[in-house]
């Protein structure tokens, strides 16, 4: 790969992570300011995973996500203004105000929904894989889920079905060490997640989920294999959320400030920047330009959301059925 391309790709990844980070920070601020009537689960600290995987997806590929799904929606191509407006409960939101933080839908860009229930996204992504195989398309289904889903029946059932039928599905486990507050180490005897993949008969990758280049490389390989009929893969991405489970929630008693601090030192955005600077692949100016672009975009998005109307109450029962 030429240096120019490597730089451009790395800066694109950095930009995408920063876009997610700044959008999340805006949402956290808006939550504190009373602009968000419901829950708000931010993705701060985990941006490298969605960014690294979605870099290889097309709009026609189908992503199914979890309650911590803002980052997946943004990385899949839902504009920040539609995500922010959705959390504000506005009609301009990506789900037209029907969903909020946990139900982000934008089928136009292949964002097939985030979910308030842990597990179903694994099965639905498997179903997307089934559709694509049946219809002869080279698209893939992708499920993002946390370590909390790893011991749910949907994980076993979905991985097994995808494996026995060689479906084009990528299972992405974002292991942030806690299912809300229950440690994965407590909930799981055998913590070698990639080994579980091999048990089902598919490749499993153990990845540093804070290293966007590592995630991107593994995702590229797995997605290419799925597109060409090689079946499913599991990516186990070790990462960490540095904010509470949900905004406004107590964040003590289950993890130490030292632990949080140690993961902040491994911030995926900071570390990629340092790496690119150290390798002389980019200069301060490159990052400053992106920072200022993203700031303008997110400021505009928040303003757009704030000025958007609420949905018409008369539409509350529309779209239950297709006709």
């Amino acid at each position, binding site marked *: 790969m030429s240096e120019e391309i490597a730089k451009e790709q790395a800066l694109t990844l950095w930009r995408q992570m920063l876009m997610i980070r700044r959008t999340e920070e805006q949402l956290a601020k808006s939550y504190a300011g009373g602009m968000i009537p419901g829950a708000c689960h931010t993705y701060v600290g985990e941006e490298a995973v969605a960014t690294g995987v979605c870099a290889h997806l097309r709009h026609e590929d189908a992503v199914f996500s979890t309650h911590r799904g803002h980052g997946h929606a943004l990385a899949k191509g839902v504009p920040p203004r539609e995500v922010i407006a959705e959390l504000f409960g506005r009609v301009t939101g990506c789900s037209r105000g029907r969903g909020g933080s946990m139900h982000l839908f934008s089928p136009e860009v292949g964002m097939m929904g985030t979910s308030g*229930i842990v597990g179903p996204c694994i099965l639905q992504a498997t*179903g997307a894989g089934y559709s694509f195989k049946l219809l002869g398309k080279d698209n893939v289904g992708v499920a993002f889920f946390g370590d909390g889903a790893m011991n749910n029946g949907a994980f076993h059932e979905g991985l097994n079905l995808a494996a026995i039928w060689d479906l084009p599905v990528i299972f992405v486990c974002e292991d942030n060490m806690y299912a809300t507050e229950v440690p994965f180490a407590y909930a799981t005897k055998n913590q070698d997640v990639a080994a579980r993949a091999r048990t089902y008969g598919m490749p499993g990758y153990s990845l540093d989920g804070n290293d966007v280049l590592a995630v991107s490389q593994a995702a590229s390989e797995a997605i290419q294999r799925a597109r060409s009929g090689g079946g499913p893969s599991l990516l186990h991405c070790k990462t960490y959320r540095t904010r509470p489970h949900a905004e406004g929630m107590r964040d003590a008693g289950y993890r130490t400030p030292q632990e949080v601090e140690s993961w902040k030192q491994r911030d995926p955005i900071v570390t990629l920047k340092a790496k690119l600077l150290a390798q002389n692949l980019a200069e301060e100016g490159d990052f400053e330009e992106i920072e200022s672009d993203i700031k303008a975009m997110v400021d505009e998005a928040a303003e757009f959301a704030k000025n958007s109307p609420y949905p018409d109450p008369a539409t509350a029962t529309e779209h239950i059925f297709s006709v």
Partner: protein
Amino acid sequence: MMREITYTTAAREALAEEMARDPSIFVVGEGIGVRGGNFNTTQGLYELYGPMRLRDTPIVERGFVGMCTGAAMTGSRPVVDFMFFDFILDSFGELFNQTSKMQYMSSGRLKMPIVLRGCIGIGGSSATHHSGSYYPIFVHIPGFRVVMPTNPYDAKGLFKTALRGDDPVLFLEHKSLLNVKGHVPEEDYSIPFGQAAIVREGTQATVVALGSMVRLVEKASETLANEGISIEIIDPRTLAPLDIDTILQSVHKTGRLLIVDETFAPCGVGSEISSQVMEKGFDDLDAPVMRLNGLHTPTPYSPALEAAVVPNAQTILQSIRDLLAE
């Protein structure tokens, strides 16, 4: 003369014809591939369409319902064949929290063309894990169409509508009806949802009969006709949507209403019909609306106990007489 075929054959014809027309339809279930289905629901189709479209599954109801939900969101049209409808209970979370809500949550930008079929009903000492009906629960949840054909003609016509639509449809086949024969035309037809059938016209009382109860109520009405009593029988055919207008019009004429349903009374379809008639047709009523249901109990095995928990010819006759005496 129009040919006669069984209920199961009629439903299978609908599936075969739609699969030939639309390559995005596929079926999943246990033993629906080479074996052709425990109830012959897919007999002969595997040879035509192969494993991608006649997909035998492991015993993972939650898994394949969740999978088919994702498939329906991405361009294909799954048919889930539960064999015994009881098995659907393992997939309730997927159905109620996911399948039924996707169109709404996506503000109509996703479709959910999925058909959920299975055999319902008490009989043959099937005992409590192979006798369930459970349809009132699905009527309660927004987002499902609930279809319960009671004869071969309706089975084919309603199944066609289910397979051509874009909504989740429960297609429920009572076990006692599967081998019943009836007239079914060769040419293509479909029956819209939400249109009840007036099975028999009458003047003195309206009986809404569900599923297998239609045939029992017909027999009772013949007995009563010999005594000069005229009963109108309505088969709703689809419970969601429910054709309440046809029921209201009938009650307007007869002034009396009985709902006969094999499954449980509490929060049931009869309760719902009764409430709606009270709200919209109170002035037409000459007597309280009455219900005859199966007993509110798990289904027992022994023939002596099993027969005691479902309505029969005697209890139906008695209920109609009680209603007329009010």
